[in-house]
Structures are given as C-alpha cells and as structure tokens.
C-alpha cells in the first residue's frame, strides 16, 4: 500500500544510510573535482582500497574514524550534529540534505565560531536598519514632493524640509500650507 511514511522511518539502518550517503556524495564530488580515484583516496587516507569500495557501496556502516580519515585526506572538514526539524517532527520528509546546511554556512560567509557568526548578524541587522531608514527618508521626500508639486517647504534657515514627519500628520494635512503649518508649529 502506498503511504506517506518516509522510507528512513522503516529502520534505523535506513536512516543511517541516508545520512551517510550524503557524506559520500560530497566526498565523491570533491574527488571528481580533484580527479582522484578511489585508490588514490585509499592511499591518502591510509585506508584499504577494499574498505573504500565498501563504504562507497554501503555508506550506512561507515565509522566516524574512517569518515574523518577520508575527509582529511581530501583537505575537508566535517560536522556531525543532531537537529530538531520542528516542521517535520515525525520524519515524513526524511533527513535534510546535508548540502543545505553546507550552503547555509557558505551563504553566511563561513563563520568560524560564534564571535564571527554574531558579528556578521549584527552587521547584517545594522545594514538592514540603515536601508530601512534610507527608504523611509526617500519615501518621505517623494511624498512631500508630490504633495507640494515640487515646492518643497523650507525651514527657518532656508534648508529644505528633510525631517521625517509622522505619516498620519501628512495624511491629515496633505497640502503645502498644511505641511508648513506642521513644520512651523
């Protein structure tokens, strides 16, 4: 019977295979990039060629030490961590592809630790706030321009009105005289 249960829910071996298979796929990608054969990987990682063939055909039984050996032989690092998929607590969709995690890390400019992560977050938040403020000022200026037909009111020293007024004030006094009235108040 066709059902919605994901295949990695059938057994823990299925789940382990799926995760380890992602690991092997990413190794294979790097081997292709470097033009490495399985024999070359075996030699560089100090693992028998038979063992390399085995883990490529059945990734589910790879040990952590072998994972580390082959990853480091290719000058790669690796991460192993459990996570809560709050959108899929019953595993109906299967494990998240590890490439998604890697891409997110790369997109965040590869933070090396929490200091770097938080610094980048702060910079991003500050840039977002600056952009929002800039947008508000542009919108305000455009609004004033449109409402006054280009005769932008000036303050007492002759400078053009640049201060941001609450929108509700502009909405209630949407004439040039209204804006000047508010400004002079």
């Amino acid at each position, binding site marked *: *019977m*066709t059902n919605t249960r994901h*295949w990695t829910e059938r057994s823990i071996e299925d789940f382990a*295979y799926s995760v380890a298979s992602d690991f092997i*796929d990413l190794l294979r990608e790097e081997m*292709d990039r470097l033009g490495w054969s399985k024999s070359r990987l075996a030699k560089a990682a100090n693992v028998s060629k038979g063992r390399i063939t085995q883990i490529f055909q*059945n990734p589910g039984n790879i040990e952590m030490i072998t994972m580390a050996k082959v990853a480091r032989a290719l000058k790669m690092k690796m991460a192993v961590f459990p996570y809560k998929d709050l959108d899929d607590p019953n595993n109906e*969709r299967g494990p998240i*592809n590890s490439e998604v995690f890697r891409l997110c890390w790369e997109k965040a400019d590869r933070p090396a630790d929490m200091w770097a992560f938080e610094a980048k977050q702060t910079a991003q938040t500050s840039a977002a706030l600056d952009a929002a403020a800039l947008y508000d000022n542009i919108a305000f200026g455009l609004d004033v321009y449109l409402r006054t037909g280009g005769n932008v009111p000036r303050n007492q020293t002759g400078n053009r009105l640049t201060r941001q007024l609450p929108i509700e004030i502009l909405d209630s006094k949407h004439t040039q005289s209204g804006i000047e009235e508010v400004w002079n108040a």
Partner: protein
Amino acid sequence: MADASCTITITAGLKHARRAVALLHHPASFVDASTEFEALSANGERHYRRGFDLWMGRARRPKRFHGFDQSEYKGKYTKCFTFKNVDAGERFYGFLCRPKEPSDPHFEMCVLVCYGKKKRDETDPAQLERAERMRKDPLVLSALTDPDLFVEGAGKNI
C-alpha cells in the same frame, strides 16, 4: 477509471509539494522497472530512495540522476530521465510528466519504466526510446489521470 493492466504507483513523494517518483506497471514486456525495483538488495533500494529524495529536493547530482537536453540524441528525449547507481553499473529509465495539470502545473513526476544493467557508464538509447514510447502510450496517459493516483492507500503494495 484507468485500465487495470496499467497502473502507476507513487513510490516517493506522495505528499510532496513539488515532485514525486512513480513506478509503471504495464503489459509491455520491456516495462520492468517495478519488478526490478522490488528485487533490489536493501542497500540498492536505499541508494535509489536517497536519489529520489535528492531529486525531489532539487539537489543537483548528475552521478545519481539526470535528464537529457536538446544537444543529446537530437533533442528526442528531453522528457526522459534516469536514476543511476554508477558503482553497481545499473540504472532506471523513465519519463517526466505533470500529472496535476491544470490545477498544479508545476508539480512534476518521474515515472520509471525500465531497468538496465551494464558495465559502461553510458546511456542506452534503446532504453530511452522505450521510456519515450511509454510517455505517449494511451494506457499510461489514462493511468496518469486516475483520480486515485495521489490517494494514500491506493496502488500496489511495494
């Protein structure tokens, strides 16, 4: 109602929002994807299931699966698709379709038609031709409109 001699069973992604993979059961003798899939070893089946997941998740893994563009075979098989196990020297061939049109025109499904085993990592055009033939087969087209196609519990036990 679809012809009972031709059924399409969704084997991955029944509730997926974008993609699914199905196996074809058809009277044509060369349609063997379903029987061969059921005969796979535990690890062989896992390999393909992980490939289905990756394809449904829009990953790019040409060593596991790929389509055929206009530059190949004079653009004759652009709707054909293959899932591979390079280490085992085997692959499944099928075709892509959009069974939820017109309500969901973006939903895509790969219907696996036949199985091939060989040493060289090359596509067999004869297998592509079979997949392409099934893509246009009237029984298959009818089965794709079966209202039970996406109903949980419908279809064969696989």
